[in-house]
Every structure is written in structure tokens, then in C-alpha cells.
């Protein structure tokens, strides 16, 4: 027998109380792992974007304003030697919906010539680039979208735009993007869209956004200033941002989701700490005399303190494992995928989330147990035994 065994057995004193406290840990900690995995996924996506060295140029007032096509050439003219600027790709929002669906998909029409350069992270092979160039209806589709719509390379499908003039266009899949960060996206050729708009007598041509692929971080900084200066005091004043800033603003327009998740997680953790503290205090009060006997038979005060703390941590960690293990295994075996996950595409278990949850459990156990542990340490054996008598 070991003291750890004694601690574990102590949790069986009141099975109902231990079970309820364990469940109080299990549910929030399971959610905590999922929440941190989501935040970690967003951060991972942000890091991936950082490596691509792209600037987003859009109208200063609103992203929905169309910028003239000619702005692309003016941006390119800032660096004719291509020492700082690799290429510029204009994109226009299509907002396609599948037939009989109200869900708007992230579908963007991109410049045919520069899309493969500016979006090299899509990983198009030479054959795919060739297909992109040759097929007007070519579509590059994220894996979540492909899975939901049961698309494969070569599939044809139609989407209806959610914005005027509500065009319905047919597409052909030439590539399925495997990256998580692209899982819910679709790109097709902007010239195809512009031709269709002209046929529909829709006068407005241009782009919602120009993506500028830079050669390095210093180039990004200087081009960012120069582009906005170029279009300052014009009808099409611009805001130029790096990709992460752009996506953050975009996501935050619907609410600061990561911040909200973190705040809720902290509140939940605080509440668990209160519950755990209450449980440990109750357990300690019931066992004051027993602890006095432990001291009487020779257990040092420090060891008594360790026992009370250890029991608290054991309760916290074992309860947390009840939630963390199923969620982690579940996400590891079957990551949650869905277009609703936006920029991250798929929710996978984050090791940081698991370690974080268990570390948090240890801290909660220590915090909940420290006060009763100190009281146990200070317990005067004689007084407690007299009270027992």
C-alpha cells in the first residue's frame, strides 16, 4: 500500500460527492480542450498566412465596394523590377449557394494569370495550373466543400450567387485543396465571372480585393504604405493590411470569437475551482479528527498537508481526465469538419489544449486544496482529539 493509494481510496468515502465533483470537472474540461483546440487552430492558420507574405488591398470604407481593375496595374507599377512585389491577384466575391441551400459559401473569383503565383500555398501542380488556364469554368475547391457536395476532380456543379445579379454559373473541379486553412474556400476564374456579368448587362466590373504577394517582411511594410499613399485622396481610397490583420478584422466583424472563447473558458475554470474548493473543504471538515489521529501516530504536519493537497489534485485531475480523454480521442479519431468552422476548416485536437486542460486541473486542485491543507498542517492534534472526545 502507498499513500497515493490511500488518497485514491479517500475519494471513495462519499461516492456521490466525488462523482458529482468529477462530472463538474469533466464537462468543462472537455469543452476547454475543444475551445483551446479551436483557438490553436486559428493561430496555426494565422501562422500559415504569415508565411505567405500577402497584403490585402481593399476599399477604405467597405470591402463590398468594387475597385477598378486598373488599380492592379498601378500597384504592379510600384515595383516594376519585381524586387519587392512578386505578383498581384484581384479577387471578387461571388458568394455562391448550392441549389436549395441558404448557406453562402466562401467563393471568390480570382485573376486567372496570377492566382497560381499569389496563392502558391494552394499547391497547384503544373498540370493543375494548365487545367486552370485552359478551362474557363475551372474551380479550385476546399476539402470540406468537396466532401459536403460530394465533389471530385472533374465534377461539374452549379452555384447561384447571393449578390446581384444572382448569376447561376457552372463549374468544373480541377483541384481539391487539402489544407485545413482552405477547407471551406473555393476559387474560380474572374474572367469567367466578368464575361457572365457582361452578358447579364451588369455594368460593374472590378475586384473587391487585390492580393499582393511580397518578397519579404520588409517589402510588405513599405508596400503597405506606398499602396495606400498611391490611392489616397481618390474615389477609391484603400486600406492595405497583412493577411492576418485582414482575416482578424473579418472574423471580428462577426464578434471576437477567440476572445469570447477564452473568456468563457476562464469563467468556467473559475467556477470549477469554487466547486472543487467547496468539496475539499467539506471533506477536510469531516476528517479533522482522523487527520489528528494521523498526526498522533506519527505523520508529520508536512505530510498531512501533502495528503490533503494530493487528494484535491487527484480529484481535479481524475475528473478532468473523464472529460479530456473522450474529447481528445474523439477529435483525434474523427476531427470535426464543417464549413461553419471558417478559416480553420477542421477542428483537430490540440496537444496544447490537452496539456493546458490537465495543467489547469492541477492548478485548480492546488488552489482548491491549499486552504484546507494549511489548516490540516496547523491542526493542533490535542485540540482536535479533545473535540473528538
Amino acid at each position, binding site marked *: *500500500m502507498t499513500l497515493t493509494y490511500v488518497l485514491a481510496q479517500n475519494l471513495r*468515502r462519499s461516492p456521490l460527492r466525488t462523482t458529482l465533483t468529477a462530472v463538474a470537472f469533466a464537462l468543462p474540461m472537455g469543452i476547454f480542450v475543444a475551445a483551446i483546440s479551436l483557438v490553436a487552430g486559428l493561430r496555426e492558420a494565422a501562422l500559415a498566412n504569415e508565411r505567405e507574405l500577402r497584403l490585402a488591398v481593399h476599399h477604405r470604407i467597405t470591402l463590398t465596394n468594387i475597385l477598378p481593375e486598373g488599380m492592379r496595374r498601378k500597384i504592379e507599377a510600384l515595383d516594376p523590377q519585381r524586387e519587392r512585389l512578386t505578383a498581384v491577384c484581384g479577387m471578387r466575391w461571388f458568394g455562391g449557394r448550392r441549389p436549395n441551400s441558404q448557406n453562402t459559401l466562401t467563393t471568390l473569383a480570382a485573376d486567372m494569370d496570377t492566382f497560381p503565383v499569389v496563392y502558391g500555398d494552394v499547391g497547384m501542380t503544373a498540370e493543375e495550373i494548365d487545367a486552370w488556364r485552359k478551362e474557363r469554368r475551372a474551380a479550385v475547391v476546399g476539402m470540406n466543400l468537396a466532401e459536403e457536395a460530394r465533389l471530385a476532380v472533374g465534377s461539374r456543379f452549379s452555384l447561384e450567387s447571393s449578390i446581384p445579379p444572382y448569376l447561376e454559373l457552372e463549374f468544373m473541379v480541377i483541384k481539391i485543396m487539402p489544407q485545413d486553412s482552405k477547407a471551406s474556400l473555393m476559387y474560380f476564374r474572374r474572367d469567367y465571372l466578368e464575361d457572365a456579368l457582361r452578358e447579364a448587362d451588369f455594368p460593374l466590373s472590378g475586384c473587391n480585393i487585390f492580393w499582393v504577394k511580397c518578397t519579404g517582411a520588409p517589402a510588405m511594410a513599405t508596400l503597405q504604405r506606398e499602396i495606400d499613399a498611391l490611392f489616397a485622396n481618390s474615389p477609391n481610397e484603400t486600406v492595405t493590411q497583412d493577411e492576418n490583420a485582414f482575416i482578424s478584422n473579418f472574423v471580428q466583424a462577426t464578434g471576437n470569437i477567440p476572445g469570447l472563447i477564452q473568456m468563457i473558458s476562464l469563467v468556467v475554470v473559475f467556477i470549477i475551482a469554487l466547486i472543487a474548493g467547496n468539496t475539499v473543504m467539506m471533506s477536510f471538515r469531516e476528517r479533522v*479528527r*482522523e487527520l489528528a489521529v494521523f498526526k*498522533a*501516530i*506519527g505523520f508529520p504536519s508536512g505530510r498531512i498537508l501533502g495528503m490533503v493537497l494530493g487528494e484535491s489534485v487527484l480529484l481535479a485531475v481524475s475528473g478532468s481526465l473523464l472529460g479530456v480523454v473522450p474529447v481528445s480521442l474523439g477529435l483525434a479519431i474523427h476531427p470535426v469538419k464543417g464549413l461553419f468552422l471558417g478559416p480553420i476548416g477542421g477542428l483537430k485536437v490540440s496537444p496544447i489544449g490537452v496539456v493546458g486542460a490537465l495543467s489547469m486541473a492541477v492548478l485548480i486542485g492546488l488552489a482548491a486544496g491549499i486552504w484546507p491543507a494549511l489548516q490540516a498542517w496547523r491542526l493542533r492534534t*490535542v485540540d482536535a*482529539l479533545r473535540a*473528538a472526545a
Partner: protein
Amino acid sequence: MSAADIELIDVHKHYRKGRLDIPALDGLDLTIDAGSFVAIMGPSGSGKSTLLHLIGGLDAPTSGVVRVGETRLNDLDEQGLTEWRSRHVGFIFQMYHLVPVLTAAQNVELPLLLFRMRSAERRRRVETALQVVGLEDRMDHRPNQLSGGQEQRVAIARAIVTDPQVILADEPTGDLDAKTSQEILHLLSLLNTDFGKTIVMVTHDPRAASFAGRVLHLDKGVLERDERNAESSPLAAS
């Protein structure tokens, strides 16, 4: 003076309650020979439990000297006293105070966790202790599966498993019926006569005190009477 197991020299113990200074023991001089069985009696507040606690190193005198064997308890700090108790003293309480989620054997094993000992050696000592108290067939029973008398036997086994020199019992039969009390007192007598343990027992019960070879009567912290009983144990009578 012969080699004494327990010696108290001019021991005073006062407790402070607010502004009041309450004397629990008032100039006690006492010698208890090694291997004796002593009962301490007296009304409530006479200082019986205080005397037991001082002998067991659970409390320190306000003044005076407490010596057990070769050890002057006054010289030990709290950590020293704790370690000394774990090796030299076994405690038996009125309410047994067993850990309800451990078996009888595991309860007896608890004091041995304080020592570096192989699990086989711990197991052997536990079995021996339970055999002495006659509960070797109840090793895997939990306290709620034992009678009051059996629980007290387990507590006694826990007290002797470290082979202490001194056993201190505070009202060991206080919660037991007459028949079970007799069994427990017989057991304590056995530990005294067959194993040479020095036993100091606090009791209200004259019948329990009759098992002891010597009865000390305390009143208001002072030793009123010191009776020696030549035919102390009913075992001797039978």
C-alpha cells in the same frame, strides 16, 4: 532510582482561555516503571488526558520535565516529537478512528508507511499484529463490516504494529459493551504481560482500572492517590 520508562518531574501545564490561565496539571511528579500497566482515573477536568498527551509527546508542559526511556521530550521540537512518537508510542482512542475506506490490514499498515520497509516486511508485521489481536481472518474486512470490539482490536493492532515501547490508551472501552470491554482489557493485559509493553490507560471505569497493576487518581491536576494492585489482572485471578 531504577531505570524508569516514564518520568515526570515537577510538571505544570496551564491552558490559556482568553484572560484566564487554567491549570491542567499542577506540579506533578511521577515515575512509571518499564513494563507496567497503569490506569489513570479522575473526574472530568482532572488532567487525565493532559497527562496522557504529555507522555505521548502530543503536547508540551508549561514547565517541568517529561522523560520517556532515554528521551527527554522537552528537548525535542515538533518534528522531533512526531518522529519519536512514530517509533516509540502506540495510541488507542475511544472512537477507534479507523479509515473507513481501507481494510483492517490497510489500517494497521498505515504507521508503517512512515518507514522505509519492503512491502513483504510490512505485510508480515501487519499479519503478526492482527494475529496478536485475534483478527487474522478479518484482514480484508472494512471497518463497516466489523463490530465495535473488532474495530478496537484493529486499532490496537495499528498501535502495536511498529512495536512501540509504550501504549497510551484513552478510554479504550468507552464505546463498548461490558462483554466486549472485557475482551479488550484482556488483550491489553496480554500485551503487558506477554509482550512487556508499558501501558498507560485513562479510564472512568473502575472495572477497567482493575486490570491495571497501578491506579493513579488525579483531581484538579494533582495526584491525589497512587494505588498499587498486586492482583491486578483478572487473568492472574483465573
